[in-house]
Every structure is written in C-alpha cells, then in structure tokens.
C-alpha cells in the first residue's frame, strides 16, 4: 500500500506534467494563430486523452518511449527524494525512541536527586507552561480551522455568484442563451407538428380500415390557387422581415 507521502508526490508530479502538456499545446496553438494560420495545429495527447487507455493500478502508459529520458530521470529522482525523506523521518523517529530508552535509566538518579529539585520544579513548570501553550494553540487551530473553512466557502460562493452574475449580464451570453432556447422551442414545435401530421394519416387509415373503406391512395390535392396564395404570402412575409 503506498504511503501518503508517495501519493502526494505522485499528485504533484502529475499536476506538473499535466500543466506542462497543456501549456505546450496552448503555446503551439497561439504560435499557429500568430503566424496567421486558421487551422488548429495537431495537438499532443494529454493525460485526459490517455486515461481511457490506462487501466487502474498500472503505473505506465503507452507514451513511455515518447518522453525524453531526462524528464523520466527527473521524475525518478523526485520519487527517490521522497523515499529518502520518508526513510529519514522513519530513522529519526526510531533513533529518538532509542535515545530515550538509553538515556532514561542513566539520567533517572540525576533527575530524582534532591539537589536538583529546584531545577526539576522549574523544569516541570516550564513543561506545564509549554503544555498549556500547546493546548491553547490546538484550541486556536480548531477554531481557525472551522473559521477558515467557512471563510473559504463564503469566498468561493461569492466568487461563483459574481461570475454567474457577470455571465448573466453579458449581452453576448444572454443572446446565446436566448437563441438556444428559441431554437429548442422551435424544434419541439416542429416535432409536435410532424407527429400530428403523421397521426392525421394514421388515424384516418385506421378508421377506414375498421369501417372497411378503401385506404386513401394519395393525399387529397388542394386547389392550385390555394397553394399559390399561401406561398405568395410566405414570400411577402419574408421580404417584410428582411
């Protein structure tokens, strides 16, 4: 099972790599546009594109050969550093325990000596004061933790609200939403109309079938004059709107 320090290292390296890829692609794009080219340059696949190819638990991907050895060396070094820090911390912990075990029996007679009582009392007071200070700091930490979370949430929501307000008041966005809504409504109306037209023929045929009347071979044709009038009206209307 990986340690939390290793996970943090992975997260940091992943973020750096992802950011680097994104930035490289963006710079390429800007470069193309700056040269006056309209087409979007072919972009290198990012980790987002690759994540479907990588199964969970497998720590390598298909781009292994494409990256330079130097970047892999740096990544490897970063993990080595993390391992060293991890080992160092563990060793220091072990060592402090050993020192404590070793020094305790030797220092015990000195510590419990009557001559050193004033110093001991002073030391105990110092420790007590230290403990009180630590407790106070813990309490403050607890309060500040809750307060900071609330503050961050508040700031985030306010930022979000103001961003949404800005977007809502932006005429271009408003226009876009309106045009989208209108086109959706148009599509719905057209769908309803198409279905009713279909149902017109369907129900007619069904009833004719029930009453054993012959089905209509073709649609009843309206007078040509009528059709011409409707088309003329449409053209006149279009000209009017233009």
């Amino acid at each position, binding site marked *: 099972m990986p340690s939390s320090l290793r996970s943090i290292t992975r997260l940091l390296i992943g973020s750096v790599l992802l950011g680097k890829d994104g930035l490289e692609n963006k710079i390429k794009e800007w470069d193309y546009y700056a040269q006056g080219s309209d087409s979007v340059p072919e972009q290198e696949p990012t980790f987002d594109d690759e994540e479907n190819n990588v199964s969970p638990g497998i720590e390598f991907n298909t781009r292994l050969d494409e990256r330079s050895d130097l970047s892999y060396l740096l990544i490897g070094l970063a993990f080595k550093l993390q391992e060293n820090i991890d080992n160092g911390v563990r060793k220091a912990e072990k060592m402090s325990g050993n020192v404590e075990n070793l020094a305790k029996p030797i220092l015990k007679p000195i510590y419990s000596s009557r001559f050193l009582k004033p110093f001991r009392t002073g030391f105990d007071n110092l420790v007590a004061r230290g403990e009180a200070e630590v407790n106070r700091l813990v309490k403050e930490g607890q309060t500040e933790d809750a307060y900071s979370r609330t503050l961050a949430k508040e700031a985030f929501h306010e930022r979000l609200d103001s961003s949404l307000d800005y977007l809502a008041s932006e005429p271009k966005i408003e226009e876009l939403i309106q045009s989208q809504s209108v086109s959706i409504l148009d599509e719905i109306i057209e769908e309803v*109309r198409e279905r009713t037209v279909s149902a017109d023929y369907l129900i007619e045929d069904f009833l004719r079938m029930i009453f054993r009347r012959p089905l209509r071979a073709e649609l*009843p044709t*309206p007078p040509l004059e009528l059709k011409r009038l409707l088309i003329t009206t449409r053209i006149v209307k279009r000209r009017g709107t233009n």
Partner: protein
Amino acid sequence: MRTSDVEELKNAINLKGHYAGFTSRSIAFIFDLVIISVTIMFTSWLISASLETLHIKPFLNVIFYNLFGKSFDESIFFRSITTSFVSLIFVISYFVFFWFTVGQTPGKALVGIRIVTIEGNRLPFWKAVLRYFGYIISGLFLGLGFFWILVDDKRMGWHDKIANTFVVYAWDARPDETFLAKATKELSARHKLIENFTIEQKNGDNT
C-alpha cells in the same frame, strides 16, 4: 444520405396548403379549450377577489335586493345564467376574432394550420360567425359533424361545408417518417390479428 438529398426529400413531401387532418385539428381545438378554460377561471377568480377586497359585495347585495328581492349571494340562478352567458360570448368572440383577424386561433397556430375560404383568402367576419354556428351543428349529433373530417375527401367537417372553408397546413408540413413507419408496422400487425380472428370466427360458424 447527403444534406442536399435530405433537403430535396423534405421539399418533395412538402404538404403546405394540403387539407389538415383530424388529429391536427383536434389537438389545436383542445389547446384552444385549455386557453379558454384557464382565461375564464382566472377572470372569474379575479372578479370575485376584486369584489371581496374592494368591499363591493355589500353594495351589490343592496342593488340586487332592490331589483330582484334577493341579495347577490342568494341569487344563484341569476349568477349562473350571467356567468354562462358571459362565458359563451367570450368563447364565440375568441374563435370569431382569431379566425377573422389572423385566420388561425393560438391552438391552430401551434399546430401550424390555418382556415381559408375556398378561394384561399382569410375569412370575412360573417363567414367566421357562420362557421362558429356550424360548430354547434357539427356537435349536435354526437359530434358527427366533426368526425366527418375523417371520411370527407377534402377533410371538411360540417361547419366547413356550411361556411365554405378549408383548414390547411400553413407550414412546410411533412410527416415524421420514423414515427409513421413504426406506427404503420404496429397497425398492420394489429390488422393481421383482426383478420385472423375474423377468419377463425367464420370457420367456427361454418363448422
């Protein structure tokens, strides 16, 4: 299929100006009824709320008592007669107004159909009124006049025949092909079932 082919196909089956069928007209009518009902309900609520809040009811009670010997609250018969009359006037005005001014009610506009004279023009006022009374005649015999649309070659109901009007598609109408194909399939399957059942029955009778 290319986009141009789709456009060509759409133009080929453009039913604009063709006689509108029973379903489209029924949906439009139902939609109009909803509008009318909501409007009447809202208006009556508004009137009764205004009478309550503006304290007009006591005055009405006095006036009604002097005129009919009953207070406004007690004269239920008179109130229902007045409400029905006002509602009827509203319903007639609704249809006649829209047929005369734009040639289609909001319900018909939603479904994309329009009422025209045989010459293809908008209805004159008297024809719109005549068509409304045609509605009443169509509804008299269990709505047979409306169901006439299903069998008539020009999809005309009795009210259309009385006022000499057509109801036509006012948009580039085309049937929903997928829906139509699916429904036809189901219909033919059902038709086969009915046929088999009739044959079986006949055979049973013969034996």
